[in-house]
């Protein structure tokens, strides 16, 4: 979540944790493959930063599913009300 604040190099990220630069690079590579993080070469250093719009896409997707599930349950709410009437 460090790179949420701004772009950073793998060395700078590793300094914040008890992990090697290699380990950080490996994680970053996966995140780049998933298109959640993008890299930007500045001279000899590569800076990494979060793709905020991609994170938002995932949030939107989960939110959409949430609304669909909720609308099914609202139909069930109505059905349960009808069932309660019947058993009265």
């Amino acid at each position, binding site marked *: 979540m460090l790179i949420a604040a701004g772009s950073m190099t793998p060395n700078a990220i590793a300094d914040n944790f008890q992990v090697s630069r290699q380990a950080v690079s490996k994680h970053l590579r996966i995140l780049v493959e998933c298109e959640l993080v993008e890299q930007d070469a500045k001279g000899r250093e590569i800076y990494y930063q979060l793709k905020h719009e991609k994170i938002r896409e995932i949030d939107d997707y*989960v939110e*959409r*599913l*949430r609304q*669909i*599930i*909720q*609308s*099914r*349950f*609202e*139909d*069930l*709410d109505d*059905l*349960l*009300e009808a*069932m*309660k009437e019947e*058993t009265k």
Partner: protein
Amino acid sequence: MNNDLFFDFTVDKEAKTAVITREFNAGLDLVWEAFTNHELLDKWTAPQPFTAKTKYADFEVGGKRFYAMVDPDGNALRWALQKYTSISPKTNFKMFNVFADADENPEEFGSDWDYTFSEEDGKTKVVISIYNESMERFEKMLEMGFVEGFKMTIVNLDNLLDSLK
């Protein structure tokens, strides 16, 4: 009216699990029926204008439910097979859910569904935990199970709006 009923939906990618928690304003007996009796399931599980139609169902351990999502013209859009693996009446049941063709031939991969029911103060809480080995398939399943019909509904609405212009 139902806004005060608790609802939560979380996706845990690492555990390859989605958990849905929902409270219903009815007693345990009715809610259990609504989730296990196929005639009732057919009434609420498909989004408008589609309907769920059960071809046959046998709610017992080792039993199956074979059903389809049907469009307004009566065409079966997608078949699915549910195999009940564990049943503790009015407390919990588990099933394996897999999409299939019209001849009941299942697709290679499915998902495990675990339903837990509990009643308190006249309300019934249902916790549904869905596990799928592959996250990719899992997303596909959620897309198909919940979104496919929804997308088509939107397309229909778009067509309607276009025809009104």
